[in-house]
């Protein structure tokens, strides 16, 4: 009897301490159980670290993050992305340091003696360093581009879906018209029209171009979510209670449509990285000497037979990154999809 009475309050305390697991927390648990998604997440995290710390730019000065200031020194990369010993050009990948490599005449005093893991290009620049550095541009384009699309698309879709009716009809017909344009052609047009003298401007142009063409899918998605959620009883309950429209959008509608939007966002990143690579490949991306994976493939493909490493490594980087984001996106979709609830 005494044992029981002393145990009873403890139960209540435990009950009190128990916090509910929200849908987000639940989804997170499910995501962690998906191995492919976790692998994709880890790889994406490595990419982000590479992009941030490829050189000391972030530490020296954030405004110079794009490398305009040459005082910036390589940090994660063994060599700078824009300089190399031209006497040591087109060397194949090697695990040996240049000093011990046969036929290498690199100025070790000036450039250091780290092995060229992925070889060098025609200007003697270290490909490994450039691939790592290229993460910065590819990832920035992918993430900022998709975020731009998310913001434009969410605002547009939210307005269209919340008000519905005639407004929705006109807004969606405009989206249909925009969809009619061939995407790549449209991007090329924008890129040609906008001036791009330096890397920063080139990047901003890419964001603008991608934002302008990428938001329609997101707008349709959010609009569809809003249209279906709007009829749900909990939205009616919120209106019944007297909640103001803005509050309904931000407290009720948006949190409930964010799941699919996050999935779409993640899945759109590889597409955007590819778009950037394509643009750079045809010479409309970031100007040289800044390395983006697309530019590197473009520079390498002419000598594909003699020096395949110039194409293969940046190509691999694109492929693996796209796979990582796709795995992560698929994992997120499974984790956030309420239909999967309890089936794991």
């Amino acid at each position, binding site marked *: 009897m005494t044992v029981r009475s002393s145990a009873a309050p403890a139960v209540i305390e435990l009950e009190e301490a*128990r*916090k509910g697991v929200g849908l987000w927390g639940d989804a997170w648990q499910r995501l962690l159980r998906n191995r492919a998604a976790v692998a994709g997440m880890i790889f994406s995290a490595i990419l982000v670290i590479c992009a941030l710390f490829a050189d000391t730019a972030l530490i020296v000065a954030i405004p110079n993050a794009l490398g305009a200031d040459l005082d910036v020194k390589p940090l994660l990369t063994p060599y700078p992305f824009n300089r190399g010993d031209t006497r040591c050009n087109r060397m194949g990948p090697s695990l040996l340091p240049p000093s011990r490599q046969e036929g290498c005449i690199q100025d070790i005093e000036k450039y250091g003696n780290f092995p060229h893991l992925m070889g060098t290009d025609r200007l003697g620049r270290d490909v490994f360093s450039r691939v790592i550095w290229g993460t910065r541009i590819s990832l920035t384009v992918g993430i900022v581009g998709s975020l731009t699309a998310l913001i434009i698309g969410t605002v547009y879709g939210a307005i269209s879906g919340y008000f519905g009716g005639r407004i929705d009809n006109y807004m969606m017909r405009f989206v249909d018209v925009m969809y009619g344009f061939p995407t790549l052609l449209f991007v090329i047009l924008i890129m040609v029209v906008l001036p791009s003298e330096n890397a920063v401007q080139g990047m901003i142009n890419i964001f603008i171009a991608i934002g302008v063409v990428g938001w329609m899918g997101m707008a349709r998605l959010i609009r569809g979510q809003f249209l279906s959620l709007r009829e749900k009883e909990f939205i009616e*309950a919120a209106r019944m*209670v007297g909640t103001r429209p803005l509050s309904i959008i931000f407290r009720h509608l948006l949190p409930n449509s964010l799941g699919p939007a996050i999935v779409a966002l993640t899945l759109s990143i590889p597409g955007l990285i590819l778009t950037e690579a394509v643009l750079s490949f045809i010479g409309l991306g970031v100007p040289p000497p800044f390395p983006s994976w697309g530019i590197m493939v473009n520079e390498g493909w002419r000598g594909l037979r003699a020096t395949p490493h110039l194409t293969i490594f940046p190509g691999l980087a694109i492929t693996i990154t796209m796979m990582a984001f796709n795995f992560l996106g698929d994992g997120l979709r499974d984790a956030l999809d309420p239909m999967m609830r309890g089936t794991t």
Partner: protein
Amino acid sequence: MSDNNILLDVQDLKMYFPITQGLIIQRHVGDIKAVDGISFSIKKGETLGLVGESGCGKSTTGRAILQLYRPTGGHVFFKGDDLTKLKGEALRRKRRQMQMIFQDPYASLNPRMTVGNIISEPLEVHNIYRTKAERQERVQELLRVVGLNPYFVNRYPHEFSGGQRQRIGVARALAVNPEFIVCDEPISALDVSIQAQIINLLEDLQAEFNLTYLFIAHDLSVVRHISDRVAVMYLGKLAELADRDELYNNPLHPYTQALLSAVPIPDPVIEEKRQRIILEGDVPSPANPPTGCNFSTRCPRVMDICKEVDPEFRDLGGDHWVACHLY
């Protein structure tokens, strides 16, 4: 209808949903007459049951009364104010006095909000308490009132059973201390064993807080149990309205008779003798209701006049209202 005790007076309420055609230029080609001119009143502290088959406009009536849908026509007087004329802020303030309990406890709670946030939302919207601590206290009190553990505040709706969720919905409706609650089939999505609990809870709350209910349901036995008066609806119109016992013992409208004949009796001897009136055909489309009496296409006692003249909804004495040419 000059009774001072009347809390809600609905007059000739109409709710039409337009049917449109065309991709860009939308033409108005017709209306779905979900609610087509109904009038009734509810006294303070009473429960009016509203029954009818699926799609007859019961829920629409409830929503139109609460201005969740803006009615196409008619008036809704709530404590003397015409709700159909109120807009924006004035209507929002009125919402403190009337609330709704929804049918589907799985759809009526935002899955991304904690129970505490769901219940305190009305309190925040109407600035009823100044501090968060006071609101928290009120939320816990409400949870206790509806028979839930106050420690549930930080949990999410999906962690609860259907009956518990419906209690959360009741707590949300009660948060602002309303006088009038529309219960839109609050039990039809629940298990039978849970239904009784929720019904009892609603009755207890009515006694405790002097609530007035419009109780929408299609379960005739439940309506008989909880209501003081019962209204029968068919195809957007009221067929009959009377005191509960009067309606169940002496149904006048052929539709009410058919409806009541479908209720099984839990006594095998009497059940054996129960005569079912089986209606022929389907409910006509509310977009294209029949001329005359809207029940004339299925009425077993149809007369010539029924097909031409729409019967008036009138008091036959003793507050027994019927819309039928037979009387």
